[in-house]
């Protein structure tokens, strides 16, 4: 049926009219859209351009090169080596397990490390490279690079990592670096952004830890263009990192090596100090460990072995170990008494092998007694009874005051991880800490370095240096930072009368050089290298009356941990003191038999700069010494200075 013309016209009119209205609506909306476009793209273009740039540009940190550590002659103690490693990017690898398996066919992969890497890969965002293999050889790295097409997501990389060329010799001085842990950040409150760099290492022990701020340097930055996932597309700008400062220590690497070698096999600590400047030339603790283990990530078994060793290789006995000083404390008592004027040097005191004090009997180490001895003889023959008498005259307060003056019972500030304060007891101390009053017996015990007295090898070395020079020598271990010398003026005089010091010096000379001296066996045959010192043997157990009557059990018959500590302090050359040494051998037995020979060898090595020739030893000992030096793990070639410490610095470095 055909519609009427009128209907057609009506329909067309209505539709046309409404189509025009609709068209108007279209235009209106288009106008709003265009206006919005104009607003966004023209009026606010600059704001949005800025936001787009902020999106696009990311600041990445560049790790600074850690400062190097040298010995006093420029021998490298801690350096940075090229570390070839392999990283994996999950995003690119697709099938991580398959890629790792393929990688395992090309290089040797540590199973534990792989497991750790797998966990990290799962945890981190897919575009972050995770280290799967570390410290590869150049050959291994090349073979990975060659096989790259079969290993998607695998990248060979070169980074810097810490290494200690002299290894175990410097574990107790230089220490080591390790990864940044949450615990570390919590403990130090360190907010340096450089800590966020993956695989960044910070000093965790000894000089590495205590000199962290100097060694670390400052992170550089680079501006990179990133995509929305944070993946780096290209580099736009770079502000290079500032390397850390180089630190030069006062330690002599050759001497340090000798001392560690000479102590090896014992559980012992020893410090060699320059009498004039206080510079520490060697600071050794045996047994020691390889700090490189900690840099690479120590395994559980290695850690357990070190931690459970009864000789405690991880403890620094030179600074942290505290021992009753034994007879090495007698110089302090003697000087205290001389300065107090309670005794004339020539006055003789009779020794019958013991004294009675109330109902207690105090023994001399020589049960038969020394007869009548004066001050010099009492020191050189280490007569205990003489010092019991002296101590009662002078009193504990004066003894302790002298001990503090000579550097015992004081925490010396060195950039090392553990420095023990030791203990020079006072009456007040005993009341506060033991809850009982000081008794005369305590004074007698203290006079022979037993009882409450505790000292570290470091303190004993400082004491010896102060006695040798008469000056308040302060120890130091840092020689220069970035080539700038640490200021070390001449130490002020202690204010002890020179004639009193001379008396003690003569007594110490006799210890080694008088036929009746306790360390006569450890004498030196050449006048230019003569040494003076004092032996000490400190008990770690009580000897009961019953045992005394039955005969004191010899050290060799006791279990190791109940044997006496062997001590020795000394200096050389006698005429112009230059080197002071302390040696403590834990449970070593007698100071004269065990500690004194070690100290003599160390002092000779320090004076000569090389392994001492046999002519310096008594004829009867030469064979044994020759044998000993052949056996000790001494470096065949002395460490060679690398020259960087004194030469001009890298131009990129900045000294602010």
């Amino acid at each position, binding site marked *: 049926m055909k519609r009427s013309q009128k209907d057609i016209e009506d329909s067309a009119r*209505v539709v046309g009219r409404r189509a025009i209205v609709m068209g108007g609506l279209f235009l209106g909306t288009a106008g709003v859209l265009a206006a919005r476009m104009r607003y966004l793209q023209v009026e606010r273009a600059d704001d949005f351009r800025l936001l787009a740039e902020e999106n696009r540009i990311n600041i990445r940190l560049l790790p600074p090169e850690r400062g190097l550590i040298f010995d006093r002659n420029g021998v490298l103690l801690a350096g940075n080596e090229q570390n070839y490693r392999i990283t994996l990017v999950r995003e690119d690898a697709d099938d991580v397990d398959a890629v790792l398996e393929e990688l395992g066919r090309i290089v040797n992969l540590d199973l534990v490390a792989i497991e750790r890497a797998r966990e990290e890969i799962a945890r981190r965002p897919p575009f972050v490279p995770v280290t799967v293999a570390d410290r590869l050889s150049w050959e291994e790295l090349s073979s990975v690079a060659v096989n790259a097409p079969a290993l998607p997501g695998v990248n060979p990389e070169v980074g810097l990592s810490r290494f200690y060329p002299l290894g175990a010799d410097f574990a107790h001085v230089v220490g080591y670096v390790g990864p940044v842990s949450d615990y570390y950040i919590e403990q130090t409150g360190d907010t340096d952004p450089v800590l966020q760099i993956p695989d960044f290492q910070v000093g965790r022990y000894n000089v590495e830890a205590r000199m962290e701020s100097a060694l670390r340097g400052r992170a550089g930055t680079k501006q990179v263009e990133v995509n929305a996932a944070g993946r780096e597309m290209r580099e736009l700008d770079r502000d290079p990192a500032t390397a850390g400062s180089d630190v030069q220590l006062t330690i002599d690497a050759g001497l340090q090596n000798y001392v560690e070698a000479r102590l090896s096999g014992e559980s012992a600590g020893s410090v060699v100090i320059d009498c004039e400047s206080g510079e520490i030339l060697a600071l050794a603790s045996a047994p020691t460990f390889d700090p490189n283990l900690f840099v690479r990530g120590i395994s559980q078994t290695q850690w357990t072995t070190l931690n459970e060793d009864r000789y405690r290789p991880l403890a620094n006995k030179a600074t942290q170990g505290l021992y009753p000083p034994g007879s090495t404390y007698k110089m302090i008592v003697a000087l205290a008494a001389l300065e107090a004027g309670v005794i004339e040097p020539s006055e003789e005191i009779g020794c019958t092998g013991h004294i009675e004090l109330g109902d207690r009997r105090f023994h001399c180490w020589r049960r038969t007694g020394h007869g009548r001895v004066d001050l010099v003889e009492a020191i050189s023959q280490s007569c205990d009874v003489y010092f019991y008498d002296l101590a009662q005259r002078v009193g504990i307060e004066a003894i302790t005051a002298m001990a503090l003056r000579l550097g015992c019972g004081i925490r010396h500030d060195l950039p090392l991880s553990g420095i023990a304060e030791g203990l020079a007891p006072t009456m007040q101390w005993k009341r506060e800490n033991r809850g009982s009053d000081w008794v005369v017996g305590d004074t007698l015990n203290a006079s022979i370095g037993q009882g409450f007295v505790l000292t570290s090898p470091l303190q004993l070395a400082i004491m010896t240096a102060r006695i040798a020079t008469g000056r308040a020598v302060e120890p130091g271990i840092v020689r220069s930072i970035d080539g700038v010398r640490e200021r070390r003026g001449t130490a002020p005089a202690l204010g002890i009368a020179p004639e009193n010091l001379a008396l003690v010096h003569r007594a110490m000379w006799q210890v080694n050089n008088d036929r009746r001296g306790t360390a006569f066996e450890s004498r030196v045959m050449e006048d230019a290298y003569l040494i003076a010192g004092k032996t000490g043997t400190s008990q770690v157990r009580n000897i009961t009356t019953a045992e005394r009557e039955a005969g004191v059990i010899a050290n060799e018959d006791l279990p190791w941990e109940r044997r006496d500590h062997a001590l020795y302090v000394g200096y050389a050359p006698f005429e112009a003191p230059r080197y002071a040494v302390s040696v403590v051998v834990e449970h070593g037995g007698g100071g004269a038999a065990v500690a004194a020979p070690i100290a003599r060898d160390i002092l000779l090595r320090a004076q000569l700069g090389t392994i001492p020739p046999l002519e310096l030893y008594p004829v009867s000992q030469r064979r044994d010494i020759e044998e000993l030096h052949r056996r000790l793990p001494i470096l065949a070639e002395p460490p060679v200075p690398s020259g960087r410490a004194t030469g001009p610095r890298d131009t990129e470095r900045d000294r602010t």
Partner: protein
Amino acid sequence: MSFLEYNVKTAPSGWRKILHLNWALVLLLVAVACLGFLMLYSVAGGSMRPWVEPQMQRFALGLVLMLIVAMVPIWLWRNLSGVAFGMSILLLLYVEFFGDVRMGAQRWIDLGFMRLQPSELTKITLVMVLAAYYDWLDLNKISRPLHVLIPLAIIAVPTYLTLRQPDLGTALLLLMGGGAVMFLAGVHWAYFVGVIAAGVGAVSAVFASRGTPWQLLQDYQYRRIDTFLDPSQDPLGAGYHITQSQIALGSGGWTGRGFMEGTQSRLNFLPEKHTDFIFTTLAEEFGFVGAASLLTLYILILAFCIYTAIASRDRFASLLVMGIAVAFFLYFAVNMAMVMGLAPVVGVPLPLVSFGGSAMLVLMVAFGLVQSAHVHRPR
């Protein structure tokens, strides 16, 4: 019955019909599609794959379909309207029960070479069936309540099914497209005032129902509305899309950052940059000039449609062409408003530019219908 009988003598026939196509419209469509190819090439990082090649194939297929549809006389399409609409309802029911579930919505039928989205198809068939209905209806009955209810029911069925998928954007587009055809057919103004009032009420109900057990929208849709109202409240989460897209648009400036130089799209800060958000890449790389040019091309296409509708004396043809124009308009207006932060993020592609098969083919078929109306217009 028809308002007009086809005048066989003066109308072109056979291959001569091709000459009577509206070639200007064809050129405009090709121009928009080419702009789309260019942008897809750019977002692929200067590569024909993975988007430009299939898009070109689909556009070629679309052109062929358009020509075929254009060759078929318009009355035949009118007679097929009911069938076409019924088919699309069946397809909607099919995805309701068997469709692929993607991105939280059940919208697709996998045809092997492409995924068909029945709701896209429905946009056109709904317009067809409504146009046919009003072609059939007496003019003086148009505004009677019963005869208003019938088209409302026709609109309600596919709208409800789409909403269930759930695809809020397409459902709203169907509602608005259908309503527009009713408006064009001459339904009394009062009804529209009523509907708008009801719409306001519905929106209030949607918001009021939030958080209650009978809430009307999915949580993600509520969140999208929230971030639409204040995108800055969650710049890395839900508001990320809209914030990044505005940054991209704005940083384009007057003339853009240059072809393939847009950092936002290059560095993947833009979401869905080859589909719903492709306009941002265009605006970033070609600036206000580029974005306004595309808008102008769209307006010109609409202008041709309106011209065709007004010039035609065939009521079905006029209503169909205008209905298609409205559907097309809603596509690009909602998409642009969305990426420019004027409308919530609903999944609506930019017509003929966004990568996607269904919308492209359906639109080309729709323009085939426009061409058919043009070719077979009474003279």
